[in-house]
């Protein structure tokens, strides 16, 4: 069971309560919530916020592929997964991503959640423009996507 969405922060915020509502069930004995937030420093620069840009269709496709791969890799049964990422401007402390995973046991939940965030960082088409207190904003360098 997967919920995957890109949320435009000019219209709504991502909300851990929504994640909780999606994954809650007495079938599960363990729930993990990972929340990525905007921090105030990067590469010795004082960050004031980040603008996230996304290719929405590719992001959803990527989330679905990663979820499917994780299911194949771990072979856990009955897992609920909630993934939302923001697009638009996020201020310091704002959440940029929520990944919630619920399954039978805690080890499974940790492994599944970790796999998802690490793969998103490697290959999901999301870009970040960092804003600073006294320097020009810059798009952060990333990793090229491989073509098959």
């Amino acid at each position, binding site marked *: 069971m997967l919920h995957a969405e890109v949320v435009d922060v000019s219209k709504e915020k991502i909300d851990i309560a929504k994640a909780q509502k999606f994954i809650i069930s007495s079938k599960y004995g363990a729930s993990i919530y990972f929340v*990525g937030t905007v921090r105030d420093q990067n590469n010795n620069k004082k960050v004031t916020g980040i603008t996230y*840009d996304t290719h929405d269709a590719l992001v959803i496709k990527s989330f679905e592929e990663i979820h499917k791969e994780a299911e194949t890799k771990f072979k856990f049964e009955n897992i609920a997964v909630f993934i939302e990422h923001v697009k638009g401007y996020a201020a310091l402390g704002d959440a940029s991503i929520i990944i919630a995973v619920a399954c039978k046991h805690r080890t499974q939940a940790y492994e599944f959640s970790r796999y998802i965030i690490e793969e998103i*960082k490697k*290959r999901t088409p999301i870009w970040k423009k960092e804003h600073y207190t006294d320097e020009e904003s810059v*798009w952060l360098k*990333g990793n090229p996507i491989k*073509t098959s």
Partner: protein
Amino acid sequence: MKIKLELFGASRDFSEKDYLEFNLKEKSSIKDLRQEILNFVDNNFKGNENYKKLVLSSTFCSEKNNIVSDNYEITKQQKIGIIPPIGGG
């Protein structure tokens, strides 16, 4: 044929709009489109080396939301997305 190039990430600095338009010959490929974008950078940004590196390290996304290689043939008027190196959220 007219190609609407949708801009993402750092390539958004190429225009105040969120797309660029190019006229390509029939039976063009992504390789040809990439060259057109490089020409655009030469003509509009004095060959800005960082922009050219960005174009050369980018991949492209078809209208059907598939990542496509340089050999991909563009056979009709369509939207193509430029996918610069990704930050991964």
